[in-house]
């Protein structure tokens, strides 16, 4: 099936999220849609999937104009979407999830559903067991269940929205193999991503979207630098310039930290490490292997059930965030919209979210509004935060600028330790470059830096030492000279050969 988009436009008030987009996706083509966050990729896909109504323009399937009011219309027309966040019921089996919403009458026919899953799974080489419970299978397989759901609905065009964000390097390879299989069977794929490596590996055609417009198309043979330049609109430095670290004393230490989550699972198991002044310690690992909890315990948001956290020789495990922040820990949380900023607060207010009690910004019970305003103007200029004014709510900025607000706030006081979790997730290439530069500057100032990231590129770009987490443990600590594949294996839980990397 050929999918054609003609002059598709979507406005929100005065803001044009998509401006006269033209695209043609041929049958059996993997069409990559490359763009920074906030470029308009999701708006476009939401229109294709019937979640948003276009302000102008039309969608054609095999030359016939179609109109989607709901995702149901889109599904009926043969468009399938795999969301970044899976829409699966964890306590149901794979087959039950696939038949969800298409039960067909009051009596469930599990057998037929199971057979259908098996057929599809064999046909496209998905290797999914229809009887497995979704909560028991790894994330990569869950994603395949999502793909199965779309295929069961006879999708001819499959939209994959940032599908690799949650996968290990090995799982990414497997996904690409599946994509090629689908393509060979005639399914078209729209592959949304901002990762250049993946686009080059699997794409047939690349369309680059910037500020709501298609700014160009490219061949997969184009260089990464070229693609990045198209995406950002200027030349981008993909490598972080940094000198060898001047490593000092250990500043923050985790000693045998064990954390039990509210559900009673031991999510961090006897983890020990030290972060040293002037050095970047990278913590690599696939999402959900205990990094989140470990990092929260370092700030005092989560209390370890065993072990201790030591800052400059003092135990801080029981201090709580207020004291830990005051003691010189800078904290960039993993999920900025959840923990990093208050969406309805202005840029000005968010820039002092953990500083408003300092004498600089308050005296007694009163805030020093003038000082807070001055601070905002300074930080906005210094960190190049693109906002209409300092009074704009942070929730309405782009992802990169939201992150810059968080980063600017944490960097605006003297730090002993900087803990940054996913510092550039969902951030555009231009801002990544900037944030990375600032992190290295902070390191060179003698701050101990801990970076947690699921993006190997980022870990490699910043780290002076890499600790790999799997299943709540640090399985190994290696130097950044290690091969990508080897780290991939560690992230997947392969036991390191002892006496190997240092």
């Amino acid at each position, binding site marked *: 099936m050929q999918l054609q988009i003609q002059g598709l436009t979507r406005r929100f008030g005065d803001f044009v999220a998509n401006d006269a987009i033209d695209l043609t996706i041929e049958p059996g083509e993997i069409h990559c849609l490359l763009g920074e966050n906030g470029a308009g990729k999701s708006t476009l*896909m939401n229109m294709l999937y019937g979640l948003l109504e276009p302000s102008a323009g039309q969608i054609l399937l095999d030359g016939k104009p179609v109109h989607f009011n709901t995702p149901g219309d889109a599904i009926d027309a043969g468009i399938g979407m795999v969301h970044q*966040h899976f829409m699966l019921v964890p306590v149901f089996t794979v087959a039950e999830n696939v038949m969800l919403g298409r039960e067909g009458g009051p009596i469930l026919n599990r057998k037929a559903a199971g057979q259908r899953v098996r057929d599809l799974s064999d046909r496209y080489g998905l290797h999914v067991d229809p009887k497995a419970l979704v909560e028991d299978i790894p994330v990569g397989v869950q994603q395949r269940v999502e793909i199965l759901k779309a295929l069961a609905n006879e999708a001819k065009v499959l939209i994959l929205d940032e599908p690799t964000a949650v996968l290990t390097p090995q799982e990414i390879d497997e996904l690409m193999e599946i994509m090629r299989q689908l393509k060979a069977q005639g399914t078209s794929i729209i592959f949304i991503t901002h990762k250049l490596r993946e686009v080059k590996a699997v794409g047939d055609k690349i369309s680059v979207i910037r500020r709501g417009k298609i700014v160009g198309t490219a061949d997969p043979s184009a260089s990464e630098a070229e693609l990045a330049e198209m995406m950002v609109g200027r030349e981008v430095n993909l490598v972080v310039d940094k000198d060898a670290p001047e490593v000092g004393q250990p500043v923050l230490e985790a000693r045998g930290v064990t954390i039990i989550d509210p559900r009673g699972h031991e999510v961090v198991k006897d983890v020990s490490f030290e972060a040293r002044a002037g050095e970047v310690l990278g913590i690599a690992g696939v999402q959900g292997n205990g990094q989140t909890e470990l990092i929260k315990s370092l700030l005092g948001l989560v209390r370890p059930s065993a072990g201790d956290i030591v800052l400059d020789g003092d135990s801080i495990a029981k201090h709580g965030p207020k004291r830990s922040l005051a003691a010189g820990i800078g904290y960039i949380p993993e999920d900025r919209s959840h923990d990093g900023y*208050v969406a309805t607060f202005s840029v000005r207010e968010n820039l002092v979210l953990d500083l408003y009690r300092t004498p600089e910004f308050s005296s007694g019970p009163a805030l020093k509004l003038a000082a807070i305003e001055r601070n905002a103007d300074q930080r906005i200029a210094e960190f190049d935060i693109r906002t209409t004014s300092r009074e704009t709510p942070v929730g309405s900025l782009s992802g990169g600028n939201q*992150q810059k607000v968080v980063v600017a706030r944490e960097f605006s006081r003297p730090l002993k330790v900087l803990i940054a979790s996913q510092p550039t997730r969902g951030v555009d290439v231009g801002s990544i470059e900037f944030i990375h530069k600032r992190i290295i500057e902070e390191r060179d100032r003698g701050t101990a830096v801990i970076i947690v990231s699921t993006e190997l590129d980022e870990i490699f770009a910043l780290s002076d030492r890499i600790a790999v987490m799997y299943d709540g443990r640090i399985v190994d600590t290696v130097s950044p000279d290690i091969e990508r594949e080897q780290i991939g294996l560690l992230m997947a839980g392969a036991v390191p050969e002892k006496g190997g990397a240092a």
Partner: protein
Amino acid sequence: MSEKDDKVPAEESSPAESPARTDGPTASSTSGEGEPGAKSGSEDATATKSPETKPAGRSSSALVDTVLTTAAAIFLALVIGAVLMALSNQEVIDSMGYFFVYPWDFFTRSFDVVTTSYGALLKASLGSGEAVSHTLNRAAPLICAGLGVSLAFRSGLFNIGAQGQIILGTLAASYVGFTWDLPAVLLLPTSVLAGILAGALWGAIAGLLKAATGAHEVISTIMLNSIAASGILAYALGEMKSFQRPGDELGLPQSPPVPDSAAFPEVFGVHLGVLLAILAAVVVWWLLTRSTLGFELRSVGANPDASRTAGMSTGKVFILTMAIAGALSGLAATMLINGDQASNNASLVGTIGFDAITVALLGRGTPLGSVLAGLLFGALAVGGGAMQTSSAGTAPEIVQVVQGLIVLFVAAPAAVRWLVRQRRKEPTDTFAAKEATA
């Protein structure tokens, strides 16, 4: 749909983010109480994507929107109130019997009823100096208690407990007022302070329960209301000899009113409490916009997780907020005891504590809004009685219906906004899109 919801307390701000989300309910990271699971981090990417599906520029248009919506809600409620007035009037009903013969009667009589009733309402509430003073005195407790509910809204707490807090306030203020033997300069402030403290204490209990055990404030404040009304107040009036006015043993038990030395001084019939209510609004405004506590309070209300990460103690904020909200309700109580010099009895507080919630809703959780809404409801309450004594003889309950309708329309802003838009003939993007694709 791209309309930005106005900053109506508590819940309104989070829906404002979600409609445009790519994947609807499952990924909406509403800042609720729920403990985020290990995978909460994965929501970040969608959340950060929402800007591209968000309209730009909101504050000024949101304000216009709020004012228009509120005005439309009030107008609509008055229109429906007018219809009800007409249809409940005997002469109008009679005229309907021969509507098809002589319809003109129906319309003129309806018109007469409505204009007479609303005319009486207007005259009694604003028509003279005396009327205005009545309205102001009546509005004062509504404003204070409304401020208390508003403040709690801003920290994400739904304070249903104004009623209980006011009851406790009246008990303390009147008890101190009529039993303590103090010189006048001391008696009035002591009595007022006692009312404020009692309200604060009662409010703080709900905050403490939430902070310590996570008990939801809606449940605990409702329970505290019952304890205050059916427990403490009933006990004091029924069992405590020192609280009862001699001679009422057989009838309705009630306390004596406070002596003149414990009463608010009056100027042109307006008692000091009105000034205190305005002052309270200014203090709440300062607290919310200019103080560190207000910063914490608003931050916790908008995103408790980010607030905790920034080192704030949500428990402390809950307790303090509820204490201050209770103090404001306690101040409202003194308007009855020290302002009106009323005897404390089972029906003294009436529904002020619940009207306070409607005041806060109509006032959108802001101090100025609470003052304006309090004045409106005060005027309606004073004018309601006058409608009955007017020649139209309209039931004063119509006023209650109008109040209810106003809040209903404010709480259902989508419906009202749709009406407003129809009148302004300003197409939304959806309409524009439909036109464009048609």
